[in-house]
C-alpha cells in the first residue's frame, strides 16, 4: 500500500517536472525565434545593437566563434550568434531565411543556389585540410600511397601489413591487424571534401560511392561515428582504425596522422604548410567557388579545402548589411591573424583581396 501511494507521489512529481521542462523548452524556442525580431525592434528604437544570426559548418566553428567573440568585444553594437549545425543544415536555414548568413564546407551546389533564387555570394573565409588519423601503436609517420588509402576505404585492403601499404613504408614493422575504416555517420562537409578527393584520384571510387555529404561506404568493416569529434574518439578507442578528420581535431586530440601521396607522387606530411601549398596552386573563379580536389605541386598536401560563408547579395536592410560587411572584412583582415593559433590556414592576400571585393558588393 505504501508502495502504491509512493508511486502516485512520484508520478505527480514527474508530471510537474515534465511540464516545467516543456515550458522551459517552449520558452527557449520562442526566445530563439524572437531574437532577430527583438534586435530589429531595438534597432529602430535606439539604433544600437544589431544581432546577426548564422549557422552551418562545424569544421570552422572554433575559428568563427573566436572571431565573432573578439569582434563583439571590439564592437559592442554588433552581436553575432553562430550555431555549428553542420553544412547542410546551415545551407537549409540560410535558404529558408532563418539566418542572416550561413557557412558550408561544401560551398553551395548549383541547385542549392537556384533554391536561394541566386541571391547569394559565396565567401571563402578560411581553409583547412583533412587528415587520415590512424590507431597503430608504435607506427609513426605512416606513408599511404593513393592506391593504399583509396583501397582501404574501398574495402579492398583489409590488413595493415598488406603489400600495398608496406611498399611505401620500407623497413617499417606493420602489424597484421584488421583495418577498421571509420567514416562520418552524419551528413558532413568533411565527408564531401574527402570523397571529392577520392573521386578525383580513383576511377573505382568515382564509379562506386562517388562524392557527397554522405555516401554509401563500400568497406565491409566500416564503422560510422557522429561528427568530427565522434570519429576522432572512435579512432582513439579502436586498435587498427583509420578515419578522416579535419586537422584541427587531429591536432587537439593528438592523433597520429598519415603522410599522403600527392599528384606529383611525393609523400607529404599533413601539416598546415602542406595544405597552404595545395591552396596556392588554385585559381579562384569568378564565383569564388573552387575545390582543390587534387592539387599539383611537389609540396602540396592532397586533401585541402576552403570553407565558405554564405551571404545574401541583397539584404534590403542597410543597417544589417553594413554590420555584416564590416564583420566579414574584419575577419578577412585582422581575423586571419588568429587562424594559425587555432590550426586553421590564413588565406593569402591574393585571395582575401578578392573576397573583400565580393563583400563590398553586398547590399
Amino acid at each position: 500500500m505504501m508502495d502504491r501511494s509512493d508511486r502516485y507521489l512520484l508520478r505527480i512529481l514527474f508530471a510537474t517536472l515534465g511540464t516545467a521542462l516543456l515550458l522551459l523548452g517552449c520558452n527557449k524556442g520562442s526566445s530563439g525565434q524572437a531574437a532577430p525580431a527583438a534586435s530589429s525592434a531595438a534597432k529602430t528604437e535606439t539604433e544600437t545593437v544589431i544581432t546577426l544570426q548564422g549557422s552551418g559548418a562545424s569544421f570552422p566553428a572554433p575559428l568563427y566563434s573566436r572571431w565573432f567573440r573578439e569582434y563583439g568585444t571590439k564592437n559592442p553594437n554588433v552581436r553575432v550568434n553562430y550555431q555549428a549545425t553542420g553544412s547542410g543544415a546551415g545551407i537549409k536555414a540560410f535558404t529558408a531565411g532563418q539566418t542572416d548568413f550561413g557557412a558550408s564546407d561544401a560551398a553551395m551546389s548549383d541547385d542549392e543556389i537556384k533554391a536561394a533564387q541566386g541571391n547569394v555570394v559565396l565567401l571563402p573565409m578560411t581553409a583547412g585540410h583533412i587528415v587520415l588519423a590512424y590507431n597503430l601503436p608504435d607506427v609513426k609517420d605512416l606513408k599511404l600511397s593513393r592506391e593504399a588509402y583509396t583501397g582501404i576505404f574501398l574495402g579492398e585492403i583489409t590488413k595493415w601489413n598488406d603489400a600495398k601499404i608496406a611498399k611505401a613504408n620500407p623497413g617499417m614493422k606493420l602489424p597484421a591487424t584488421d583495418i577498421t575504416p571509420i567514416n562520418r555517420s552524419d551528413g558532413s562537409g568533411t565527408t564531401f571534401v574527402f570523397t571529392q578527393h577520392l573521386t578525383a584520384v580513383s576511377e573505382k571510387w568515382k564509379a562506386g560511392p562517388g562524392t557527397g555529404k554522405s555516401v554509401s561506404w563500400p568497406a565491409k568493416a566500416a564503422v560510422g561515428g557522429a561528427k568530427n569529434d565522434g570519429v576522432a574518439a572512435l579512432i582513439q578507442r579502436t586498435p587498427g582504425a583509420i578515419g578522416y578528420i579535419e586537422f584541427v581535431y587531429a591536432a587537439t586530440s593528438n592523433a597520429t596522422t598519415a603522410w599522403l601521396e600527392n599528384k606529383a607522387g611525393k609523400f607529404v606530411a599533413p601539416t598546415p604548410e602542406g595544405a597552404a601549398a595545395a591552396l596556392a596552386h588554385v585559381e579562384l573563379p569568378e564565383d569564388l567557388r573552387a575545390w582543390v580536389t587534387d592539387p599539383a605541386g611537389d609540396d602540396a598536401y592532397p586533401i585541402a579545402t576552403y570553407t565558405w560563408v554564405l551571404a545574401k547579395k541583397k539584404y534590403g536592410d542597410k543597417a544589417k548589411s553594413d554590420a555584416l560587411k564590416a564583420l566579414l572584412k574584419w575577419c578577412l583582415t585582422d581575423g586571419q591573424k588568429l587562424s594559425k593559433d587555432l590550426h586553421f590556414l590564413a588565406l593569402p592576400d591574393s585571395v582575401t583581396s578578392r573576397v573583400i571585393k565580393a563583400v563590398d558588393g553586398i547590399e
Partner: protein
Amino acid sequence: MSKEKPHTQIAQVPTGWQTRSDVAFRIVVHVFGAAVVVLLGAIVFEVMRHAGGSMLKYRLGFFSGSVWDANRDQFGIFPEVAGTLYTSFWALLLGGFLGVTLALILSQGFLSRRGELVMKNVVELLAAIPSVVYGLWGIFVLVPLLRPIAGWLNDHWGAFPLFSTRLSGPGVLPASLVLTIMILPTITAVSREALAAVPPRLAAAAYGLGATRWEVIFRVMLPTASAGIFGALVLGLGRAFGETMALAMLAGNAQTFSWSLFSPGNTLAALLANHFPEAGEYEVNALMYAAGVLLVITLTVNILGSLIMMRATAGLRGLR
C-alpha cells in the same frame, strides 16, 4: 477547538467557486486526454504525409534494398530493419532472462523487505540514466572489455556464424548488451507487478500440499503470472526498438547486416538520428518512410503488449 465557526459544516451546498473549479478541472482533464490522442494522430499524419512520395517511389523494394545513397536517390532499409530486430532480439533474450529473475527475487521473499525495496529502486534507477551516458559507457568501458573476449571467440569458434568476424569497436554485441540494461527496468518492474498480483493463497495452497519453493515458483507463480510477464517482455521489446542515442553511438552505423555478433550494424532509430540534420528533400522523404516503418513496428508491439496485459489482469480478477 477554541474557535468555533458555525458556518463550516460537514454537509453544505457547494459554493459557486467549488462548482466552477470542478467544471474547469473536468474540462482541463478532457482537453489533455484528447490532446494525447490528437498528438499521436498528428504525428502519424505528418510522418505519412512526408513519407508518401517515397512510399510510392520505392514501395516494398525499400525493405529489401540495402543501399542508402543520397547521391543516387537509392534508399533501402533492409540492414536497419534487420539490425533493429536482431539487436532487440538479443536484448530481449538477455534482458528477459535477467529481468524475470530479478522480478522473482524481488517478489518471492528471497530478500528482506528492506533489501527488496533497495534492489527495486536500484533497478528502477537504471531507467533514469540518460541514453547518451549508456552510449559513452559502452564506448569507453564495454567495448574494450568485450574486445579480447570477442577476439578469442573468433579465433576458436570463428566457423560459428555468430562469431565469424572480429569486434573492432562498435557492433551488434555491445549495442545489444547496452540495450539489455536499458530495457531491464521495464521488464523487471512490470513482471514484478504481475508476480505480486498472483493471489498469495495460491502459493499458500501449493505449500500446503507440500510443494517446495522451487516448485511453487515454477509450477504456480510463473504460469499464473505468465501473461503479465509476456506483456512485460513485449513492452521491453517496444522500448528496445525505439532506443536511439546509445545505439547510434554503439551499433556502428554501417549499412550492412551480418549474423555475426561482432560486426557493425545499424538500426532504424540510429539511421534517423544520423541522417536527419543534413538530409535533402528526397532523403527526408525516405527517412520519413523509415520513421513510419519504425512507428508501425513499435506501435504494433506496444498495442499487443497492452492487450496481453489487459487479458492477464482480467483472467486474475476471479481469483481475488
